[in-house]
């Protein structure tokens, strides 16, 4: 582990934030409706100067009601998934772990389908039900994954994988038997999709939850560094391993649940971004967690921009883009690590 100075961390974050800024500007500019960069600058300037009344209405709708909220949502979801992936990889000490490995997304899927069946008319019920489904799954996996009162990585992983495949079967069952109900939305939900604008209030819930989750994981960063060298050693060095594991488990689950509830299951982000950041900046969790947060935001904003534009005006689900790009990228990372 390289010696960490605050200076170095600041530099790394600043450079990543610069990349994020450029990504956001590009994402704001491109889309099915072409906007010139001068118009974009002009209208953003108007907002900053408080002259919003002078913005032409179509710009207001397209930039401020559609593109910007969607970019913000992509950032939030990307950051949450990546930090959660970092957390699960540390917790399970398994490089293949990602936010969905413990069945959270399938649990969310069951929740969303039940909401679409039972209360199709109410807009906030689906994300809430998805979140509850995700949390219920996490709780179930937690109790299945304990051995002798301790969270055991292998048992937890197996419990998660089994729960995920069981819940995926439940989803298939529900979708097939309820073919007559209006479940078309569920396809998008299962693939991961950011195209549907959210109720404004949900952004606040997301921001608050993500600050809470990321903050909690970050407090364990130094301890995670020790735990990754071995649990026994960590205990000898005075780390409260049980507490750290619980904090990471609950926070990473909260982050995944939040992301799943608003965007469905966007694959590969939580798996790849932590790996990429580890290769770029080393495996110190004090660096890895903030860089994963920003890197995840960059990744999902970029992927969603592609989803919006490659086939315009038709949109692809962002989950399809992350999977198409993510799988080859993962292979690339894998090959690079080999001697």
């Amino acid at each position, binding site marked *: 582990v390289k010696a960490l100075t605050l200076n170095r961390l600041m530099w790394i974050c600043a450079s990543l934030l610069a990349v994020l800024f450029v990504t956001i500007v590009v994402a704001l500019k491109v889309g099915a409706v072409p906007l010139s960069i001068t118009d974009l600058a002009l209208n953003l300037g108007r907002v900053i100067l408080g002259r919003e009344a002078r913005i032409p209405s179509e710009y207001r*709708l397209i930039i401020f009601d559609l593109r910007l909220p969607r970019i913000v949502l992509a950032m939030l979801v990307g950051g949450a998934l990546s930090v959660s992936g970092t957390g699960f990889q540390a917790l399970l000490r398994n490089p293949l772990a990602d936010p969905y490995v413990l069945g959270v997304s399938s649990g969310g899927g069951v929740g969303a389908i039940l909401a679409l069946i039972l209360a199709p008319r109410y807009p906030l019920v689906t994300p809430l039900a998805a979140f509850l489904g995700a949390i219920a799954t996490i709780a179930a996996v937690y109790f299945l994954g304990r051995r002798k009162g301790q969270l055991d990585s292998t048992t937890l992983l197996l419990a998660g994988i089994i729960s995920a495949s069981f819940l995926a079967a439940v989803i298939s069952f529900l979708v097939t038997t309820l073919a007559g109900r209006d479940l078309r939305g569920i396809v998008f939900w299962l693939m991961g999709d950011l195209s549907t*604008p959210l109720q404004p209030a949900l952004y606040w819930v997301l921001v608050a939850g993500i600050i809470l989750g990321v903050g909690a994981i970050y407090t364990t960063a130094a301890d995670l560094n020790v735990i990754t060298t071995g649990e026994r050693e960590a205990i000898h060095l005075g780390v409260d391993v049980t507490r750290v594991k619980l904090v990471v488990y609950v926070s990473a689950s909260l982050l995944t649940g939040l992301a799943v509830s608003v965007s469905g299951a966007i694959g590969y982000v939580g798996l790849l971004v932590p790996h990429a950041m580890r290769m770029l900046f080393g495996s110190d969790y004090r660096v890895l967690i903030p860089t994963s947060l920003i890197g995840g935001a960059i990744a999902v904003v970029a992927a969603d921009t592609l989803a919006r534009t490659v086939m315009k005006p038709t949109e692809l689900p962002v989950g399809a883009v992350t999977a198409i790009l993510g799988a080859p990228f993962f292979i690339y990372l894998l090959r690079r690590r080999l001697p």
Partner: protein
Amino acid sequence: MRTSYHRRILGATALCAIAAIVAGAQTTPPVPPRVTRGNGDNAKAAPLVVKDEAGRTVEIPQPVKRIISLAPSVTETIYALGLQDRLIADTDACDFPPAAQKLPKVGGPFTPNLEVIVSMKPDLVVVAANSGNRKETADALDLLHVPTYATNANTVDDVLISIARLGDVLGAGEQGRALSESLRVRLQDLHRRLEHTTPTRIFFVVWHEPLMSIGQDTYIADAMRRAGAESVIPIKEGYPRVSWEEVVRAQPEYLVFGSSRPEEITAMMANVRNLPGWRDLKAVEENKVVIVNDGINSPAPRIVDAIEELARRVHPEAFVDVPPTPVSVAHPMIELAKNALARAAVVAK
């Protein structure tokens, strides 16, 4: 020392968090005022407030001059009402009438591009709640304050009512009622012809791999009944996957397909007719396969054409030997002619 380092980091994180909240506040601005539309000088009528067919309350500015259709059935109906001049865009799936393919596109019915829709400043977006569009799309358009009207038809009668209502909403009530009435007259005529026939047992093939058919509560099954045919699949809702065993046991008299490209169905049938399942059906053996036009798949005026086509195929006896027309039934025939004239007038306009 470690703690003080951590404090600084946490302080920085908290700052970032506050920045995020501020940024979040700016990205979700207060509800913007309703989009003001061009040509503001001519006096505008008060907006029409209606309950649409999905039960949503919609405020529709009057007159409706710029319409975007998000479903093939809606596009077809708007053309049939003679309102195509006001249709400014539709979807990739809108292929009837052929002229509709040339309109600007806003994406597919499942994946319409909201940016494009908003940028076209429509007075009204029309969606089909049960055939083509996602509920999320209508919800999203509501959030963006784009007036959105949903049609929803689960029976052939619903289709006729829906057409008349859409006419009313678009300020073409006269045309809507005339069109709806002409379709009703044709269906009544058909009903009279088929009154004493026994329903033919058919199997409607929605998709062949996996085998999918229609539920009894769908408008397609209702259209089958109007044509004197009855689906052998007892399942009620939706478009179920069905087992070959069930179909083979039921031995339908006809297989029915709805397609705009009958040659593709014929080619497909030639490929599969020796496969287990298909080869066990008497209907396949005797080549009793009916391909009606793809209007059957869409809750729009052409569904009546498809019903008539199917009726002629499965009940030829009701059409070759038309019973002598009694005086009492002459009246609807006159009305039929009258309606045909009215429809022609609408089309000409």
